[in-house]
């Protein structure tokens, strides 16, 4: 006979998952590391999606990342009408990597600080606590995507006004699809980081491993996949391939060409990529849950 670590409900009034979500949101909102990470992403995104391209455009030169693109194409991506394509472009690789860092520190730091121990002695079950924490993380990801949309819109508006171009937005359906995909990709990487942080029970190890995986290993495997068929089919189920293909197919990316955005692929079809990302969105939190439930908290 053993003690029971989990049950269904809570005696305190209200929903324990909601309690946990509110608690986790409070500590995330006041965490400087979160603001730094999110700020870094927004700044990088503004620079790579708008600033550099705008400077290239206005100086009339072509630089390494815009070589071959006509000035008209360059301008089209900088205007509000190009938002649907611009918003998710940096997310499969850079945005994803930063979300992975975020997920890893949200989950991993609590073990070193002993805060998960304290939280789990408060009452809510492990399942409720985890659901709350994952919900709070998802809210954070949604806020980051929303902030990205706002920054991109502001930048594109500035370009349009400055160049006396149309400030018309893209079709609402396209914009919604773009934002939806952006959220799915960012959420997948954040959940991957959360799982890594839970496995390693430390932010440093999980952030390091995660970044090496997303930024180096996957790229190398895709390189090897060019000559080895089985490695190629293996790369097709990787999160980076799925996220890169999802965004790549939506914006019609041409990887391999000199002006291709890093991280955007056409390895999978749009539907296959969407399905793979969706599968990760289910498998990653389930694995985390399985791990959190069964492990001793020491």
């Amino acid at each position, binding site marked *: *006979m*053993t*003690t*029971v*670590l*989990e*049950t269904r*409900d*809570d*005696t*305190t*009034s*209200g929903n*324990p998952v909601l*309690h*946990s979500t*509110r*608690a986790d949101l*409070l*500590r995330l909102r*006041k*965490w*400087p*590391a979160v603001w730094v990470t999110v700020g870094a992403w927004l700044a990088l995104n503004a620079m790579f999606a708008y600033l550099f391209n705008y400077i290239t455009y206005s100086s009339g030169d072509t630089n390494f990342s815009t070589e071959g693109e006509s000035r008209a194409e360059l301008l089209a991506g900088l205007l509000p009408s190009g938002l649907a394509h611009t918003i998710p472009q940096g997310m499969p690789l850079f945005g994803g990597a930063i979300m992975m860092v975020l997920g890893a520190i949200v989950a991993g730091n609590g073990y070193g*600080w*002993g*805060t*998960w*121990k*304290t*939280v*789990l*002695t*408060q*009452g*809510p*079950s492990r399942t*409720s*606590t985890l659901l709350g924490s994952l919900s709070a993380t998802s809210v954070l990801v949604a806020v980051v995507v929303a902030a990205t949309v706002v920054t991109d819109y502001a930048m594109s508006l500035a370009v349009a006004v400055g160049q006396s171009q149309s400030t018309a937005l893209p079709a609402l359906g396209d914009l919604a699809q773009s934002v939806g995909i952006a959220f799915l990709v960012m959420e997948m990487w954040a959940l991957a980081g959360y799982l890594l942080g839970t496995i390693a029970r430390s932010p440093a190890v999980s952030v390091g491993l995660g970044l090496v995986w997303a930024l180096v290993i996957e790229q190398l495997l895709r390189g090897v996949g060019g000559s080895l068929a089985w490695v190629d089919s293996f790369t097709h189920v990787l999160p980076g391939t799925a996220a890169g293909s999802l965004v790549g197919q939506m914006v019609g990316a041409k990887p391999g060409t000199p002006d291709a955005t890093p991280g955007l692929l056409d390895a999978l079809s749009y539907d296959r990529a969407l399905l793979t990302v969706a599968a990760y969105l289910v498998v990653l939190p389930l694995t985390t849950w399985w791990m959190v439930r069964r492990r*001793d*908290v*020491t």
Partner: protein
Amino acid sequence: MDDPVVQTKDLTKAYGKGDGARLAVDRVSMTVRRGEVYGFLGPNGAGKTTTLRMVLGLIRPTAGSATVLGRPAGVPETTARIGALIEGPGFYPYLSGRDNLRTMARYRGLPDALVDAALERVDLADRGDDKFKSYSLGMKQRLGVAAALMGDPDVIVLDEPTNGLDPAGMADMRALIVDLARGGQTVLLSSHLLAEVEEICDRVGVIARGTLLVESTVSALRGGRRLRVVATPLDRALAIAMRIAGEEAVRLDGDAVLLDVPAESTPHVVRALVTEGLDVHEARISERTLEEVFFEMTDTGLHAPTGDPRTSLEAVR
């Protein structure tokens, strides 16, 4: 009063499998009753924290069971009624003390209004807005106690709450625990400090190498007072002492004779010795400290001097 708040039955935790397994906690059966301050006493690494973690559902027992308020340990309904500080305070370093408590209050579904009262209770009200990482160890421990007090739990589990504190901090912490106990709060306190347990606990459980050696009241454990007599010649003194107190109640300790007799028989014993023509060099009441009892038990690893600990301790009285 005899209503058990925390009860463990043959609670066991083994790390590793097969022959290499190490028993951190070995068939511990203990009972904490309502309204008492229970001292869980043992050297470092004896299995105190592991036992408490099982009581809180943080780790899964290998065998045996723990119940809190009559329900299995670890279910949310029971955990919600325990306030705990386990192995050092674990809080978010970047949050203020107040925000840390607000976070924990939200997990419990409690209103923010309780936070200020909890800070007040542990004397942290004026430092509540400072970051946790700027706190001294004593303040961190006090914040941990504040978190444990929120929501008026049925039982408070404090794991080595005075660990690492300076003497003033220790005194404050003990005063706080005594204060809680006066308010009728059930407290389960683990410690490796005997003086602390002796001072504030009603009952104690002594654990060493994972095994609960004895569970008893502090006074029963100390075994009451003894009369210590040094008289020559020793053999005659021993014979006289045995005649008065009975053979069972007399022990030889070096050149002193120890008698388990009521304090009021001291003049009678001394008079008898003098009347018989012995030289009495010393006669005094000696009290065993908890420390002596503790080392006796933990050094030998025996459950008690003889047989069942509880009966023999009662006999010593």
